[in-house]
């Protein structure tokens, strides 16, 4: 087993495109879940409308720079539509409605009646040429030794991590303001917040829309990298990646989503490498029954178990404050 190669691959994944995309997506989810206490189980829906909003705009002849605000607007509208009927009800209603909305949207863009716009199961491709044409980085490989990226990836990563940095500054401004304090008050006890004159419904709606818009940006970023939007990519699993990352990093912390995403994708790739090596290269008796295609499912099982362990022993995440966790909300 080439442990150095496995570590390098894992390290590349830790700062790679999915890591940046999910850091961004999780920043949005963290505002909703970590700061406001909203159970948005359909975060993928926001990523979907962002990506499709942009891709369709370009496909209809618009510029990608018009596509970006279109995608954000689509997410804000989705937040309004999902939030309006549910945010006055108990928290679980939002969870049910959002998880359903994610699936409905995926099936809708996939359907034949939407195909004139969404191109159905084939999806839309090559809508980000405008972005790649701007790449000023000369052709070549950048990095040290085997830890290298080509010029295209560097350009995409530059975009991704810049967006992460911008979103973090934005959230930093927001969450340490009185606005953020009101959000946290709502997370702790809605009735108490109401009794102090806070418009709880309005705040929750804002949180859903803003967090959703950040999720949409993440969806657009992933789509730009792949130059492809396809309905079958937007499965509920994406939402649960984001939740895992938020919980791993610590809900309601500023850098939690970034740290969580880096660790998540490092482990993701690392486990993949180690398990593939163990199963394929090594001659270990009890692993004989397995082959390389089993790696994916086993990895998910391990992640599931890890998430359970976190929820039981470190619900504040790896880096959340211990003190805060000791306070059992009432």
């Amino acid at each position: 087993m080439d442990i150095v190669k496995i570590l390098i691959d894992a390290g590349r994944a830790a700062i790679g495109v999915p890591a940046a995309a999910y850091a961004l997506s999780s920043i949005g989810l963290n505002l909703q879940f970590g700061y406001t206490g909203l159970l948005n189980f359909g975060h993928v829906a926001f990523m979907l409308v962002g990506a499709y909003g942009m891709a369709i705009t370009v496909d209809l002849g618009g510029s990608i720079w018009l596509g970006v605000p279109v995608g954000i607007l689509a997410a804000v509208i989705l937040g309004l539509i999902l939030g309006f009927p549910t945010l006055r009800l108990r928290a679980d209603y939002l969870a049910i409605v959002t998880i359903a909305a994610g699936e409905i949207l995926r099936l809708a863009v996939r359907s034949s009646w939407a195909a004139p716009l969404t191109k159905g199961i084939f999806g839309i491709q090559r809508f980000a040429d405008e972005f790649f044409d701007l790449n000023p980085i000369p052709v070549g490989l950048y990095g040290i030794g085997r830890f290298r990226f080509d010029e295209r990836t560097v350009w995409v990563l530059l975009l991704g991590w810049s967006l992460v940095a911008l979103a973090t500054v934005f959230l930093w401004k927001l969450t340490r303001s009185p606005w953020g304090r009101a959000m946290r008050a709502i997370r702790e006890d809605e009735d108490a917040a109401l009794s102090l004159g806070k418009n709880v419904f309005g705040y929750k709606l804002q949180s859903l829309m803003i967090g959703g818009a950040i999720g949409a940006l993440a969806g657009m970023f992933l789509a730009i990298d792949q130059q492809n939007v396809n309905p079958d990519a937007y499965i509920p699993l994406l939402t649960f990646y984001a939740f895992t990352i938020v919980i791993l990093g610590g809900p309601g912390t500023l850098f939690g989503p970034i740290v969580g995403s880096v660790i998540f994708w490092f482990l993701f790739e690392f486990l993949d490498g180690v398990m593939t090596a163990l199963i394929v290269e090594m001659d270990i008796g009890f692993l004989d029954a397995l082959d390389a295609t089993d790696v994916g499912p086993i990895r998910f099982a391990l992640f599931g178990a890890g998430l359970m362990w976190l929820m039981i022993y470190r619900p504040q995440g790896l880096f959340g404050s211990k003190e805060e966790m000791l306070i059992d909300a009432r």
Partner: protein
Amino acid sequence: MLDKHPTLANVAPEPGVGKPNPILEADGLKRFFGGLHAVDLEHLEVERGTITSLIGPNGAGKTTLFNLLTGFDRPDAGEWHLNGGPLVGIPSFRIARSGMVRTFQLTRSLARLTVMENMMVATKDHVGESFWGALFGRWRHIEAANEKIALASLERFGLDHMKDEYAGSLSGGQRKLLEMARALMVAPDVIMLDEPMAGVNPALTQSLLHHITNLRDDGKTVIFIEHDMDVVQEISDWVVVMAQGKLIAEGPPEHIASNATVIDAYLGRHHGEVP
């Protein structure tokens, strides 16, 4: 005994009686839970600038009445006015903003906010609490000013040494105190306290009573639910008695203490009668 409020001197001690200068008026307010008439009031007025105690046996409907008046529950019938303005159908947060703030019988501290944050979050009309204001507004000087007010208030409630602790780490009595201090940060005209003394130690109770009288003397109206008759006798200007959802008596504390209907309600209808 603390000074009583003069304006109620000539008001007859009868249930539903009119007051010279009421801040709060309720008419035909009803709330049913299935067949149970939790609240069933004909008419109630609360005099401005007084301390009005709301008493009654367990399950009399006192908390439910608070919930109705503050918009936390919807009545099945009836209407009520604050400062002459109708409150039917107004959401609870708007009622709080319009000047009537309540506390809860079961305390609701914002556990993972510090004591100071609990106080600061209660201030109203804060530009920094709107999305655009938070990003681009100038709110730091407002925060600084509010922090001074909050600190002074925490001192009065004996919580200043806890200001940087999470509210979730306070004791039960301390949470009651924090909740009351926090409600006052909203700067309400009417403050409604649901058993604020429950679980607070006697020494502190005295200073709280003093504080409540000060609030009245500053022109605020205090309505509070209390089971301890000594406390009620000591500070109330007026006492309203509920039993089984109905307003059964009201009047100055001396009058209530000797009222046969009230004693009946507390001790059961046929106490002392020879069967």
